[in-house]
């Protein structure tokens, strides 16, 4: 869905874990941005009223970026910068 431009300034990379898999991502990203970059918007989050949601605003307004960070559910992924060793789990209803 998103790709990183080749001519981007070199960024420090950190390792985060998305659903148990390690990934190296630029340290400048928020948790939500990292997920969009790694796996796209599809399947980002299941909504209580049914259907799927993904980040809309990326600036703390919509709350559609809720994600489990280091075991804490429902954090606003767009407002939390990634950090070395951060564990992310997308919030999906059990099938």
């Amino acid at each position, binding site marked *: 869905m998103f790709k990183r431009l080749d001519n981007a300034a070199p960024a420090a990379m950190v390792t985060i874990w998305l659903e148990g898999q390690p990934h190296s991502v630029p340290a400048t990203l*928020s948790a939500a941005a990292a997920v969009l*970059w790694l796996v796209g918007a599809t399947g980002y989050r299941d909504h209580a009223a049914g259907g799927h949601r993904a980040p809309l605003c990326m600036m703390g*307004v919509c709350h559609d970026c809720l994600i489990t960070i280091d075991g804490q559910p429902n954090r606003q992924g767009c407002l939390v910068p990634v950090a070395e060793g951060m564990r992310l789990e997308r919030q999906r209803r059990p099938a």
Partner: protein
Amino acid sequence: MSDASTHHADVAIIGAGPAGMAAASRLAEAGQVPVVFDLAPSPGGQIYRQLTAPQLGEDVMGRDYLRGRRLLERFERARIDYRPGSRVWWAKREGQGTTLGVLADRRSESWQVRRLIIASGAMERGWPFPGWQLPGVMQAGAGQILLKQGALIPDVPPVLAGTGPLLYLLAWQYLRAGCPPRLILDAAPRSRYATMLRRPLSTWHGRHYLLKGLGMLTTLRRAGVKVVHGIEGLRAEGNPHLQAVHYRRAGRWQSVDASMLLTHFGVVPEPQLSRGLGLPFDWHPSQQAFVPHREEASLAAAPGIWLTGDGAGIGGALNAEREGHLAALSILAAKGEPVENERTPLVQARRRELSARALLEALFRVPDGWLAAQPETTLVCRCEAVSLGELDAAMAQGAAGPGQLKAFTRCGMGPCQGRLCGESVTRLLAGHLGTTMNAAGYYQVRPPLHSITLGELADSAAPPAP
């Protein structure tokens, strides 16, 4: 009565965008040490996000972005108690000042503030259309944030839709980044030239905007980006993510396959802090937004509270910087410093800029009848999944104000605190009751102004008993 667990500040500033940085820097240069709270991990606000370590250069981002460096350096040099990653989730006027609840590192602390400058900026307008809740649909600002934060661009050409300068800026940036948009669907009114002729002064003051816009448009056209004007309706479709965008023009629906749709229907002041403090707002017909009251000369909205930047009315980054500067001067003047010579040119520049803005507002109006024309299944409140049809039904059953409508339908009860549906609800009520936006009213905004968990609340330093 003060308490060891309460912090005190003479001046606190909420927001480290252009307005907040300018205010803080100027105060610091006069020997004050303001405290600055901001959600983001680094200063810059929306426009200068990530400018402390830019991911891309002027070739992609344009000149306006890099221009912020000067202000950023000034901010970083000054002696300021800058607190990134801080969420002001509580604000209340108390006695001589304002009490703030500030959440940082998962702990909330209370602050007693004598003078408060609110510089918390704008947000993109919530603008319902069928399917705007689908993954694959984002606001244009989100696309730009990804660009600034990590040089992230769509891996397939996206569709851009809506109205406003940001739409074209993003299109231009994507083009420069090698990912030209597949299609731009422009929903602005079509009578652009007539608008300019009707506002000669604004057009003159806004000529640099016009030239810049024209330049971008020419570049986009030359690169073969298709722009469709006169969009009357929009629909996003797909499961479980966006697959097609439908748009209506001259009464006819057409479709385009797309996996990403970026929309923009203007920016509006982010209302939570000012509304939470009980400051009065008025509907601004030209900005098509609710805008808080403030004193024109000092930018004060109440004793000890100043409103600056886009959070007080959309004026753009340069205007925000001047307003931050002016608020700082207003505080310094009260402390007896001579500031008149410094003020005058700022006031003049601000007046010219706001006149130029009036042109942009007229050129990029959002279509007022849009909401009422949406199908009844369209979600108005995304958080609680409340549709237009449900709101119509509740109004027919006697809900005659935003509070009652919220109570009857849950509209606005979700975690976004009604920020994305507030304007829509007022529009619906105004239409239903045949009254003005002001008379229709707005939700009552109460804490939390930002999300906080019960654990964070419980662990927080106990605030003093009043």
